[in-house]
């Protein structure tokens, strides 16, 4: 089964070699040795063009070109260095660890791809889970192939004699088949559709055809459109739903589809290539909107690594890196004066005051973790308030680049209902239905909040926990009912949270604020906030105020 992915990747590599500019590039996800095989094949196809590797932490000068300071100092005259982008013109740029590409670098690459498209881009994506290369780049390249499940490496591509890409003509039927398929699959961006057309033409060229055949369109749908599907066709008959179980290769000559119009065939080919787990994710409504938007999580992650800002005066120590160019910039205007003073004609005289250090952007936004007691009769109202407050906070999130998460306590345990997110759209969708009821597993809730807070802190952000509870625990850490054990467990959990020094606030939502919640807050070293009649707005205001001044608790 999985070797098919390798076959597809090798096919994509051959197509890319035929029309590198039109197709933009290929993203290879995971795969280790299989990826090497594909890269090797692509190198074979594109042997006579320059190949450049994009270092992860590349700076502007190396990327776009500029003055080489070291060489300039040596030569005593400015030495201009060609940037990597210029050096790769007409060739291939390979970007390892593409899921960590900085936005800025991705932006520069995207600009060049948009322009004359002077190179083909190969992204090597080693991301785990949700980490993906910047959406701006994925949107501009034809192929996005997951090799992580490839088992066997032996694959012999069928022989083919290619004709030039330009010799292949397009026709109306092909256009409408691809356009219809893209609409049916919910692909919003038009770039992939244009890429699919180019891929179909490349496929035809590979097989020596000057006109597009059914096979070409199906290959394009499979390789380009299928990985970007965000939905399945609204009124699709059952066979299509089962199609993913088939192998992509089989779909092309399925007899049932024989006398259907081309668009349906193309769509069927795309559907067959959609990975089975996408179906599951689509049905649970959590599928990522591939190719367009929905990338708030990724963006935030890459932001954490810090984007270089300007430089400021300072000594290069304590982790601060010397900003050579800026140091020289600061020193240069004084050279005439200093040379006379020091009677030194030979060297550039750099004073301590000229030293500049690099600054990196630390947009380590705050993550507010709401932990809501959804037990008892007031559960629905409380969850509603928390939901409203979360949406209000998210609406403000762009100010501080902060994120919000939600944990609900209900029944026997705690459940993370909304993982940390910045997207209002996503929060709305996932908060739509929140059932409540059951006991109050406070200990489990505090544990869950603690674990989430630590995960957040490990990713370089500042967690802030908000507990909406009356403090009356009645389910212990193991999920069994019993007030005394539950209270003891909750206290232990609260003490553990206090030790982690995570800022927190306990919002007492009991109709008559009582001692339990106050005690919980004290144990937790958290602020105590009685708010019996909170509505969403009051809650949002209170939490924001508490977060801004957690030290004064």
């Amino acid at each position, binding site marked *: 089964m999985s070797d098919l992915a390798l076959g597809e990747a090798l096919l994509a590599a051959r197509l890319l070699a035929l029309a590198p500019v039109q197709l933009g590039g290929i993203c290879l996800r995971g795969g280790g040795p299989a990826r090497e095989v594909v890269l090797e094949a692509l190198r074979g196809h594109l042997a006579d063009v320059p190949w450049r590797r994009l270092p992860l932490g590349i700076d502007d000068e190396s990327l776009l070109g500029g003055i080489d300071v070291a060489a300039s100092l040596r030569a005593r005259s400015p030495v201009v260095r060609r940037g990597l982008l210029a050096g790769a013109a007409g060739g291939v740029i390979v970007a390892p660890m593409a899921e960590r590409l900085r*936005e*800025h670098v991705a*932006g520069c690459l995207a600009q060049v791809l948009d322009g004359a498209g002077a190179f083909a881009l190969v992204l090597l994506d080693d991301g785990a889970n949700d980490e993906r290369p910047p959406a701006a780049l994925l949107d501009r390249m034809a192929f996005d192939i997951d090799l992580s499940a490839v088992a066997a490496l032996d694959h012999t591509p069928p022989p083919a004699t290619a004709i030039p890409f330009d010799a292949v003509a397009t026709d109306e039927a092909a256009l409408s088949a691809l356009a219809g398929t893209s*609409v049916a699959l919910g692909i919003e961006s*038009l770039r992939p559709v244009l890429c699919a057309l180019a891929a179909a033409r490349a496929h035809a060229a590979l097989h020596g055809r000057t006109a597009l055949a059914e096979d070409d369109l199906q290959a394009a749908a499979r390789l380009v459109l299928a990985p970007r599907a965000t939905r399945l066709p609204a009124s699709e008959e059952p066979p299509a739903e089962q199609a993913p179980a088939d192998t992509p290769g089989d779909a092309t000559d399925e007899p049932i589809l024989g006398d259907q119009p081309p668009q349906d065939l193309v769509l069927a080919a795309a559907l067959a290539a959609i990975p089975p787990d996408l179906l599951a994710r689509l049905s649970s409504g959590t599928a990522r909107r591939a*190719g*367009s938007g929905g990338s708030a999580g990724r963006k935030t992650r890459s932001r954490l690594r810090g984007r270089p800002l300007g430089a400021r005066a300072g000594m290069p120590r304590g982790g601060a890196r010397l900003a050579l160019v800026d140091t020289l910039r600061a020193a*240069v205007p004084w050279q005439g004066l200093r040379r006379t003073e020091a009677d030194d004609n030979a060297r550039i005289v750099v004073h301590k005051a000229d030293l500049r250090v690099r600054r990196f952007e630390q947009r380590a936004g705050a993550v507010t973790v709401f932990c809501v007691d959804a037990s008892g009769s007031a559960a629905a109202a409380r969850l509603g308030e928390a939901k409203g407050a979360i949406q209000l906070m998210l609406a403000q999130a*762009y100010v501080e680049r902060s994120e919000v998460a939600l944990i609900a306590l209900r029944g026997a345990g705690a459940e993370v209902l909304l993982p940390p997110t910045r997207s209002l759209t996503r929060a709305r969708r996932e908060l739509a239905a929140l059932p409540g009821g059951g006991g109050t597993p406070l200990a489990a809730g505090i544990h869950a909040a603690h674990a989430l807070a630590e995960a957040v802190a490990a990713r370089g952000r500042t967690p802030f926990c908000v507990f909406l509870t009356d403090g009356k625990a009645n389910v212990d850490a193991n999920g069994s009912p019993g007030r005394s054990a539950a209270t003891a467990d909750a206290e232990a959990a609260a003490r553990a949270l206090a030790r982690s020094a995570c800022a927190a606030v306990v919002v007492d939502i009991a109709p008559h604020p009582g001692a339990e919640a106050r005690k919980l807050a004290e144990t937790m070293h958290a602020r105590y906030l009685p708010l019996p009649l909170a509505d969403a707005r009051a809650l949002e205001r209170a939490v924001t105020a508490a977060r801004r001044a957690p030290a004064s608790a």
Partner: protein
Amino acid sequence: MARFPFSAIVAQHEMKLALLIAAVDPAIGGVMVFGDRGTGKSTAARALAALLPPITMVDGCRYGCQPDERGTCPDPCTSAKSRRAPVPFVDLPLGATEDRVIGALDLERALRHGEKAFEPGLLAKAHRGFLYIDEINLLEDHLVDLLLDVAASGESTVEREGLSVRHRARFVLIGSGNPEEGELRPQLLDRFGLSVEVRTPEDIDTRVAIMRRCAAQERDPDAFAEEWHAEDEKVLRRIARGQKLVAKLAVPDGILEDAARLCQAVRADGLRGELTLMRAARGLAALEGSRTGRRAHMVRVAPMALRHRLRRDVLDETGSAARIERAVDELFG
């Protein structure tokens, strides 16, 4: 490579209209385009820049001086010759440093001659043209602020590294972004003159039309440009006529009153809303060759002039455009 012709862009009428109004009256203060990737935002902006007739500037001037402004830039430029150049279109890369945007000390001249000279940045390059910023919502706030300042004043003032430079930088600022990936602060949003929302075309015919034209353009850019040349010329004539008309175009008091009432009805914060609404109505009237601004003009530009100035209520999901239309219906319907 020939650019995609402006008139060959399929659908996206509101975005095209906003860009044309900005071309007629650059003082409108920039256009913000909200929308998904791959909806032709940058294509439209580039196409408009390419459509406009070449500008004449002093030969070798780094600040793009007009011939009658010779010697007024910081250099100052001295050449007696002038040359024609295409309308500048600067695509600001995400994460561009302040140095690249506003300019910095010219390192080359500093190293070679030990002299303090200013190397103009992208703002100077964009003078008399367009400055396009994709994903402006991800740009640092202070840079957005700076850009809006310069766009509004038409002048860039640099005071840093011992340099003190002031140069002209009149351009149409076009920002684009997808609100799902993070939003722009309301204070910054308010400073944009117009804002439009672009959606990806969902019907197959429109998509086919786009694919057909893109394929044709790619196959033979020159022939494609030739095919659309007449249409582009028409657009160009409309802009030229509009630019001539807009200066002396009068907007009757009644329309101004209507504009004020509309702003009040939708509770658009601040006076910028009314001013922009009036300006945009005038721009549209000029674009259509009308000698006076009419209410119909004002109503048509109301969504793009006010959409981004409404106070947001997160718990109310009604879109801004719908609220404006409702208010228009109630007031003038």
